[in-house]
């Protein structure tokens, strides 16, 4: 196992419960939008890549005949199984799988979803190509992930902060980069939506269990953020210097594999 994948497994093995309980990863209009785009059916099969706590797989389960939930981290899958099982997702099966080397046959799925995970992937282009490969012709790709602001300085700031907070963060892409990756993999983008998401600063740090020296570093980084980042991310700092929150955006993207 390479160093990055090992770090991802250690990080999510240690913080699995936090992600199952996380309101950011559980409910919300973004998940409802993804499900509304799902085009399910009793004979259809969906894959949830990097399922994490299992929220997306569970949300898709009533709409498909079968949902496969994959994740790189076995401990995360154990937690996902308990979470899904307790809520009646009897048609969800699990597989330990790498998003960039999916262990599924070509054209096996009517839909491939991946929610709030690709910023951990070393090679998101490879992930999108794999998603396209396992989709049947006409099948749909449903993506949600944090995107960086279009402003390059603000974008670099946010990725730097994310890596400090959680070393398994690789890079969030800009919305335009996702559209390009989909097109390059032979997927036609049919819809995109951007959802703002406000992150209360302390919760954001707590979920990743960021250790103290880096918490202080991150607080200073946000407090002294360059104006472009402060504006693009709506960074809120209290009069006493505590960072209250920042707001970034998540992209939701629906794309279709060509019929031929």
């Amino acid at each position, binding site marked *: 196992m390479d160093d990055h994948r090992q770090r991802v497994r250690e990080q999510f093995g240690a913080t699995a419960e936090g992600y199952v309980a996380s309101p950011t990863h559980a409910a919300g209009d973004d998940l409802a939008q993804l499900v509304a785009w799902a085009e399910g059916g009793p004979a259809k099969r969906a894959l949830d890549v990097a399922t994490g706590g299992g929220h997306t797989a569970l949300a898709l389960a009533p709409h498909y005949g*079968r949902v496969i939930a994959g994740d790189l981290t076995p401990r995360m899958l154990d937690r996902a199984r308990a979470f899904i099982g307790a809520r009646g997702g009897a048609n969800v*099966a699990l*597989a*330990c*799988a790498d998003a960039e*080397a999916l262990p599924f046959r070509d054209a096996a*799925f009517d839909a491939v979803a991946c929610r709030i995970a690709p910023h951990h992937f070393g090679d998101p282009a490879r992930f999108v190509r794999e998603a396209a*490969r396992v989709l049947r012709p006409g099948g749909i790709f449903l993506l949600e992930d944090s995107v960086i602001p279009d402003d390059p300085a603000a974008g670099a700031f946010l990725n730097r902060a994310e890596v400090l907070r959680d070393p398994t963060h690789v890079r969030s892409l800009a919305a335009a980069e996702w559209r390009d990756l989909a097109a390059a993999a032979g997927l036609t983008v049919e819809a995109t939506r951007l959802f703002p998401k406000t992150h209360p600063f302390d919760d954001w740090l707590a979920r990743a269990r960021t250790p103290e020296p880096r918490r202080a570093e991150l607080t200073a980084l946000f407090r002294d953020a360059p104006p472009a980042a402060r504006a693009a991310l709506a960074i809120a700092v209290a009069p006493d210097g505590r960072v209250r929150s920042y707001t970034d955006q998540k992209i939701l993207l629906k794309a279709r594999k060509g019929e031929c």
Partner: protein
Amino acid sequence: MSDKAETGDTTAEAQPISQELLEILACPIDKSPVKLVGDRLVCQEQGHKYRIEDGIPIMLVDEVEQ
């Protein structure tokens, strides 16, 4: 699981993963179909083997058994 490996028992009753999952799983390396042999999933092209842990197939390139 270990005694199943020894007897090579792959009857439906003893199968550690569902038939439907088995039919869509592929080797993450060469993408060929996999077959249940004992308690391992074995790729039909090059014989890569993957273990099943607590009902979850571990289909990772890094954990392949030759």
